[in-house]
Structure formats: structure tokens, C-alpha cells
């Protein structure tokens, strides 16, 4: 039974469609990510669901009720913004309590719920501080507490981690996911970062140019890209056209082929038909750029020990596991 259901949603900005005919459903408690490059319409879609941007057609059903005619105030949706959007004139406590104040919740309940929400994001000690006295990560946790305190039916996260530095981003990512699981809160997360999408989501909707090009769990999106865009956007696929692929595989291939760099392997045994062009160290992985039969490929190899490193110019044998090749449209 779907909790959120978006049907034939359309949006046009001065004549140009941002997206048309968007369809998807989300079940209760699911964490769904809209992933795509900037300008693909994912943020606009999120703002349409929130009611901040009017739609030109279609339905958004939330728990069976069409919310398109409702104002943002009446939709019962919480949202966290990339810019935090904390109210600078209010303390952390007042920020979190704002939604309850608008609902005219009495002072005792409001205080109790505000404290609970701050506990959830581990910021009780900061209740009396002002937003400008907090770090970026703390600000975003306050924003999260503020959007949770009104107990929304749906939580929208609009690139909430993009303005934070890498370490805090990782930590907050886990914290958001843990809270979402604990509250069993249906959540739509927008990001352009594939790693965030892959690690956090129950399901990912990959968007491009106003369309959802593929949806599925992280494993499906990663291992079976639906088209060349999906292959190019997720992971570091070697994307070959039919002719090049035929040359590489030495058999006729009729469509484009995507090969994940970590499915290729290099060794000194076998026919040394491959030349190492250059390599870069990514930490746990060594990324080689190799050439075989006039085809350039990227090969990722686990960095087990320094002795295993092939120097540039070395001839090695390349083996390709045919079962991991993806033919893409």
C-alpha cells in the first residue's frame, strides 16, 4: 500500500517543461532519494511536493489525500533546506518550538516536545544559543529537530549535507538515517551525490532532464544501469560504443556496453596485450588507465601491498568477467 503517490505530475517554467509526467509511489517509512545532476528537476519536484512551487498538472496523494490543492501550511510536511534556513533572531529552542507555536500548542507540551526533539539530535546543551553561535553541522541538526517536532507525515530533505565538510557530512548522514528509522518516517531526500544516495536510501530514483530514468535499490542502480546516463552518473563505468566493445571483446556486440572498473583484473600471467598508461592512488584502490587493442579503459584494483603496483608502461594481461558486462541502451 503506497503512502505517497505522485501521478502524472507536470511543471513548466515560462514555456519550458521542468518535468512532465512524473510517476512514483513510496511506502510508509521508506527512505527514498531523488538523485541527479543539477538542473534535472529534482529540487523543483521536492518543492512541488512541499507546496512551495505550484504544479501545472497531476496529483500528489499523501496517505490517500490529494495535497495539490492544499497550501504548504496545511500539508503536514517537514522540510530541511541546504541553507539550514534557521531563524537568526531566535534561539535554538525558539527555532525548534516555532512550528508548535504556530499550532498553538500549550507551553508545557511545547517545552516537552522541543526538549525531546533536541535530545533526538543531541543538542540539548545548545538550547539557549543563537544559530550564528553554532557550526554548520549543528545548524542542520537544529533544522532537522525543527522539522521533526511537528510530527510531519512526510519529511523532505533538500541537499541538507551539501554545505557541510566531508567528516561532518558522513556523521550526519548516519544520524539522519538512524532517526528516520527510529521514527519510521517516510522521507524524500534530494542529492547530486551518488555516494550519499547509495549509502542512505531504501530506494533511489535517478533523474535526468525532468524524467526518472531508473529506480531501484542501491545494488540494482549500481550493478544494472538502465541506460548510458545511469552508467555514466553512478560509479565510474567504462562506457564503450558497440564498435569499440566488439574490438575489445573480440566478438560482435550490437549495443553499447558498460564495464565497471573493479570487475576488470590485471595480472602478469597470460597474454600481455595490455599496457599501463598511468595510475593514480585513491587510497584503498589503485586506479589504472590502461590500453588494450586500441581501447582505453579504467581498471580499479584493491591496494593490497606496495609491491603489487604495476609501473607505467608495463605490459600485463587483462581479464574481463563476461557476466558483469552490462549492455545499455
Amino acid at each position, binding site marked *: 500500500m503506497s503512502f505517497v503517490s505522485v501521478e502524472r505530475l507536470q511543471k513548466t517554467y515560462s514555456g519550458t517543461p521542468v518535468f512532465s509526467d512524473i510517476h512514483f509511489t513510496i511506502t510508509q517509512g521508506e527512505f527514498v532519494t531523488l538523485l541527479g545532476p543539477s538542473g534535472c528537476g529534482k529540487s523543483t519536484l521536492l518543492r512541488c511536493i512541499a507546496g*512551495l512551487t505550484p504544479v501545472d498538472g497531476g496529483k500528489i496523494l499523501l496517505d490517500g489525500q490529494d495535497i495539490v490543492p492544499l497550501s504548504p501550511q496545511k500539508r503536514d510536511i517537514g522540510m530541511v533546506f541546504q541553507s539550514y534556513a534557521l531563524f537568526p533572531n531566535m534561539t535554538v529552542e525558539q527555532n525548534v518550538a*516555532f512550528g508548535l507555536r504556530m499550532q498553538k500548542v500549550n507551553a508545557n507540551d511545547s517545552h516537552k516536545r522541543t526538549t525531546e526533539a533536541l535530545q533526538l539530535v543531541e543538542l540539548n546543551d545548545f538550547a539557549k544559543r543563537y544559530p550564528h553561535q553554532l557550526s554548520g553541522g549543528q545548524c542542520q541538526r537544529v533544522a532537522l529537530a*525543527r522539522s521533526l517536532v511537528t510530527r510531519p507525515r512526510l519529511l523532505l530533505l533538500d541537499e541538507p549535507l551539501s554545505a557541510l565538510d566531508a567528516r561532518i557530512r558522513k556523521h550526519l548522514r548516519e544520524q539522519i538515517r538512524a532517526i528516520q528509522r527510529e521514527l519510521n518516517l517516510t522521507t524524500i531526500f534530494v542529492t547530486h551525490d551518488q555516494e550519499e544516495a547509495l549509502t542512505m536510501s531504501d530506494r533511489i530514483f535517478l533523474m535526468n532532464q525532468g524524467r526518472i530514468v531508473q529506480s531501484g535499490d542501491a545494488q540494482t542502480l549500481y550493478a544494472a544501469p538502465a541506460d548510458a546516463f545511469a552508467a555514466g552518473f553512478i560509479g565510474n563505468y567504462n562506457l564503450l560504443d558497440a564498435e569499440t566493445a566488439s574490438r575489445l571483446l573480440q566478438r560482435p556486440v550490437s549495443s553499447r556496453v558498460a564495464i565497471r572498473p573493479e570487475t576488470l583484473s590485471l595480472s602478469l600471467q597470460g597474454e600481455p596485450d595490455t599496457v599501463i598508461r598511468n595510475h593514480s592512488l585513491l587510497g584503498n584502490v589503485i586506479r589504472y588507465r590502461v590500453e588494450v587493442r586500441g581501447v582505453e579503459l579504467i581498471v580499479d584494483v584493491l591496494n593490497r601491498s606496495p609491491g603489487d603496483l604495476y609501473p607505467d608502461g608495463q605490459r600485463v594481461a587483462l581479464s574481463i568477467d563476461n557476466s558483469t558486462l552490462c549492455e545499455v541502451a
Partner: protein
Amino acid sequence: MSRAESTTASVYHRSVVWLLFLILLLPLLGTLVYSIASSWSATVLPSGFTLKWYSQLWGDPRFLTAFGHSLLVCVAALVLSVVLILPLLFVVHYHFPRLDALMNILILLPFAVPPVVSSVGLLQLYGSGPLRMVGTPWILIGCYFTVALPFMYRAITNNLQAINLRDLMDAAQLLGASTWQAAFLVVLPNLRKGLMVALLLSFSFLFGEFVFANILVGTQYETLQVFLNNMRNSSGHFTSALVISYFLFVLVLTWVATFLNKDKSQ
């Protein structure tokens, strides 16, 4: 940099600052001394000190009336500009950001036309006919409104751009606030600083405005600067006392406003 060099540099920097300060302050200091001198003509120093010029000034009903007039006109013009410009700014920045470019041209107009020129135009337009306002405070209020517009618009715009208006409004509305509640509870308190700066700047400028006041209204509704001009043939001690009083008033006002405006959250 060696210690000696840095000392020399620091002495140099200090002396420049002090010199500048002195140059700015000297005329004011001279005026102050002159306003408390009993007489000061053929001697290097005044012959004696007295407060009689101040008591004479503050006992003069014509001065008090002019002071009141200035105050009234300035405050009315500023109230009008706040009431009109705040909603305008809000609409421009929240709903029609493209209008900002147009507004930036519009607000330059009061600067582009010199007061002497525009006052001739205003005299033509409002001197007779159904909109006869010349000689009344109303024309001055309207005119000062246009003078204050650029100060108000710029200062508050800078403030608005610093607070990310759109996200704040969106966040407040999703939390259940109406547009009005969002504007009053979330946006307005964060514009206080810009608003205070704009008001102070406009007020000190308008309080000292002479050209419009003299040409459009003159003695029919005498303001402080027009009064000062009309007193130019009386004792210099008296007018000095007036200038110092005027200056002190603006100074105290600015200081009080700054004090009140101090952010409790910082």
C-alpha cells in the same frame, strides 16, 4: 619587519588618524568655543565664557517651533517611507526579484537631479491647481520621502540579501505560519539592523536639509535649517549655539539608537 620599523609605522599610522580627527573636529571645536564665549573678536582667546547664548536660543519660541517642525517633517517622512518601502522590498525580493534592477535605477533618480532643479519642478507642479501644497509641510514630507528612498532601499536590500529571505519564508510557512506571520515573526526582526541604519542615515541627512525646505516652504513652515539661515545676520554666538545644539541632538540620537540596536544575541 623589525621592531623599530613597526614602531615607526605605528607612530605614522597614529599621527595620520589623529590629524584627520583633528581636521574634522577643529571647525566644530571652534564653533563650540564661540558658542560659549561672551565675546571673541580682537583677542586670540575669548574674553570670557557664558551660557547665555544657549539660554537665549532655548528660550526662543521661534527656535523651538522650527525645531519641532524639523522633527515632525523628518519623522513623518521616515514613517511614510518605512510603511511604503518595507512591503515594496518584500514583494520585490520575494515575488519579483527581476524588479530589483528597475528599482536600482529608480532610487538613483533623487540623486541624479540636483535639489535646486527638482524643487523648481515641484514648485511648478504643486504651486497651484488641485495639488497646491507649496508652503505646507505636506510637500516637504513627500519630497523628503523621495530623498530617503535610496538610503532606505539600499540599506534594507543589503540586509535582505544577507538573510536568505526565500528559504526563511518557505521554512516558516512549512511550519504552519501564514505569509503575514512569517513576515512579522521571522523576516522583520532580522531586518532591524538594516532598518535602523537606514533610518539614522536618512534622519541625520533630512534633519540638516536646507535647499528643499527653503525653496518649497521657506518661512511659512520654518524648519531648523531655514531658521538658521534667517538668523545669519544676528549674533554669530547665537547661531553657533544653534549649530552645536543641532549637532549634539543628532549625536545623542545616534548614540541612543546604536545602544538600543545592540544585538542581545551577540
